[in-house]
């Protein structure tokens, strides 16, 4: 069976490194992007089974990225988890309205993150 593909979108290389280590250890294939626009390009090129995105990013932020994914038919139903330092109810509501599947507040617990990914992964 082909490993499931996860696209991680975060402007911090350290975060991308930590996600890569966590997800690879669990057998996922990981594709990395630095911001929303980069995420859309990587999505077009590689596809993804699950997307994990930061919210505060340069060029294109996470909320705009989620909206852009939902506008594309191929990714209208792809699970999108946010992974962010934002924990306010307003931001969460914004993420939910944009089409996010779930909201995870950093710092993340690797085991819990993996359980959520496994749960939403089609």
């Amino acid at each position: 069976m082909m490993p499931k593909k996860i696209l991680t979108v975060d402007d911090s290389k350290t975060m991308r490194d930590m996600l890569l280590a966590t997800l690879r250890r669990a057998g996922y294939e990981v594709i990395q992007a630095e911001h929303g626009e980069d995420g859309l390009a990587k999505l077009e090129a590689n596809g993804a089974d699950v997307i994990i995105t930061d919210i505060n990013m340069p060029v294109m932020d996470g909320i705009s990225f989620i909206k852009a994914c939902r506008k594309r038919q191929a990714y209208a139903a792809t699970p999108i988890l946010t992974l962010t330092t934002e924990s306010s109810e307003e931001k969460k509501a914004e993420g939910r309205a944009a089409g996010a599947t779930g909201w995870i507040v950093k710092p993340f617990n690797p085991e819990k993150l993996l359980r959520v990914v496994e749960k939403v992964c089609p």
Partner: protein
Amino acid sequence: MNTRRNAQLFSHRSGVDLYTAAASEVKRFFDPRFNATSVMVLPGRHYVTSAPTEMVVTLLGSCVAACIRDPIALVGGLNHFLLPESDTGQWGAANAAMRYGNHAMETLINDIIKRGGDRGRLEVKVFGGGNIIDVQSKNSVGKLNIDFVKRYLLNEGIKISAEHLGGSLPRRIHYFPVTGKVKMLLLKRHPDQRLFNAEMSYRERIAAPEDLDDIELFD
């Protein structure tokens, strides 16, 4: 499983929120010596401002503080943290120490960006990491903190413009985020037992850092 598809997904947060400082917890007073309003940052906290009259102050033992600002947007602040002692392991291995340190840096940087700062313009000065607790130890807590902050900034492609790290004396940092000026005082060893005590209690608090465990799956 801690994620439930319902509205009350937010699990209990541990008593002390080690990661963020609410505005109400900030202690400030006017300091006539500097003709500025002094804002004290305690271990595990950070503070960001764009007020030219504010001076951010922190006392460092083996903890480190990153003073970060955007010199164009004129916004900046500092954090004050140390890494919990945890499983070591590879950089990027997402162990507790790395996640904690990463969070301390990221929350500060994000707050600066949210107030108009630009990631590509950040000016960074780092201080602290003194070997004040376990003076005999070579691989001191201070050194681990120094190694982390340097490695983090290198990894993020952010240059350090000034640093004063290591040694065996505590430091007092006065940072003016709008001008970027730092006044640092090296303190005689433990002039104030409270610094030592505050750091020890902070170390104990984060010895087994709890993740905030804030996960919500929307319907």
